[in-house]
């Protein structure tokens, strides 16, 4: 049965699914979607995911969206090592707890920084009020403090001694503002040490490969045709700036 995975590695949840499947040697047909082109609005992709969001998978006839749900599903179907999504009830609950919390904290704030600091001004040519940028940075900072205090504490990984889906989802989201040139790990030694551990566990090559599109964004934006993002502009501005 073939597994198709629809991804754009600019997107944090796409990166976590990409890293998870590659790390676990899960064979899949990598269907590249370029979000900035608006190709998620095409007819073909609409059949896979009516919500037109990435990532999305199609395994036989079974279609699924939401990176967290996708990874939990693949972990089960492909019998990945237990530490990714432990069978132990309390360890699993800790993973679920982080995956739940991060939606309305790190994910949102990290995302905003990339859009406010880079994509909206440079790729869309729209100015973002300084107040909004400052608030986004402050919120992100607050989330990172909570992350270190409540989830990481003094452990090597979120659930304990081993990497899990929680660390994977956390790291791709925390990396997002780096794409806008923010040094997220400056003055955060504990966070940096954790990131380095996660990168090593995943494999530096795979980690770096997955983040290449994000990290070259600042350069790419310079040569990007400003009209390219026009179809996305109304949605993006409404979501981020209203």
């Amino acid at each position, binding site marked *: 049965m073939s597994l198709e995975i629809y991804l754009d590695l600019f997107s944090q949840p796409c990166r976590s699914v990409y890293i998870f499947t590659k790390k676990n040697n899960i064979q899949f047909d990598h269907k590249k979607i370029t979000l900035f082109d608006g190709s998620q609005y095409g007819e073909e992709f609409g059949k896979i995911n*009516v*919500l037109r969001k990435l990532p999305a998978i199609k395994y036989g006839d*079974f279609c*699924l*969206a*939401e*990176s*967290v*749900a*996708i990874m*939990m*599903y693949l972990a*089960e*179907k492909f019998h990945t090592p237990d530490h990714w999504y432990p069978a132990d*009830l*309390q360890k*699993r*609950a*800790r993973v*679920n*707890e982080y*995956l*739940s*919390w991060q*939606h*309305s904290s790190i*994910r*949102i704030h990290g995302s905003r920084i990339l859009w406010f600091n880079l994509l909206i001004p440079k790729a869309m040519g729209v100015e973002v009020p300084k107040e909004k940028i400052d608030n986004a940075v402050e919120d992100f900072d607050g989330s990172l403090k*909570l992350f270190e*205090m*409540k989830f990481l504490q003094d452990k090597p990984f979120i659930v304990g001694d081993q990497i899990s889906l929680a660390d994977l989802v956390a790291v791709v989201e925390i990396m997002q503002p780096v794409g806008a040139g923010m040094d997220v790990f400056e003055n955060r030694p504990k966070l940096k040490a954790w990131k380095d551990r996660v990168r090593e566990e995943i494999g530096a090559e795979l980690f770096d490969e997955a983040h290449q599109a994000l990290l070259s964004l600042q350069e790419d934006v310079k040569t990007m045709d400003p009209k390219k993002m026009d179809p996305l502009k109304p949605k993006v501005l409404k979501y981020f700036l*209203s």
Partner: protein
Amino acid sequence: MAGRQAVKAYLDLVSQPCRAVLIFLKDNKIPHTVESIAIQKGQHKTPEFIKLNPMQKLPVLEDNGFVLTESDAILKYLATAYNVPDHWYPKLPEKRARVDEYTAWHHENTHMHISSVFLHEFLLPRMGLPNPEMLEKALSDLDGTLDKLENMFLKRQAFLCSDDISLADLLAVCELMQPLCGGRDILKNRPKLLSWRSRVQSSLSDSFDEAHDIVYRMRI
């Protein structure tokens, strides 16, 4: 389960996710005690509570020393620990994935927009800080969410993830009841969601009304 102590749930029933946890505990007859924490009185910011949950949020579950936050994590934990009927959180991967898909989507959609409507329609005006523009935006965003609930999750099924009630329906219904606090029934003109809500209420026996008593009493 012999000798297992009852779990302790820290709840404020004004909060949507707290109601979901209470309904689940009651409906499945899971032995529990409830400690009421009144958000309005700042009881979630006491040094004692912060020690329990530094996020200063509810609900919190304590199971014999194991402290857990985040309502969907709590519900999934309870569903597995207490061997509740399979439909709540099915073991079959394809069915389970549908529930996981909804509970992930729920955060930035149903929960976020309902919370925003509640904030701008109920809480802020009472603090002398009304913002009609933000309320309009929140209602418009919520409208989009309701469209997606109908067309992408419910479709022609009885419940959001299948033909049986699951954790997804429980979380969603508690959210969709929230605007009633401000006297607004957001499902009024949506017959499909109205009949879904009735089905959910019927499935949940008395626990639904018990948990929502506070909402009924707050209705203007």
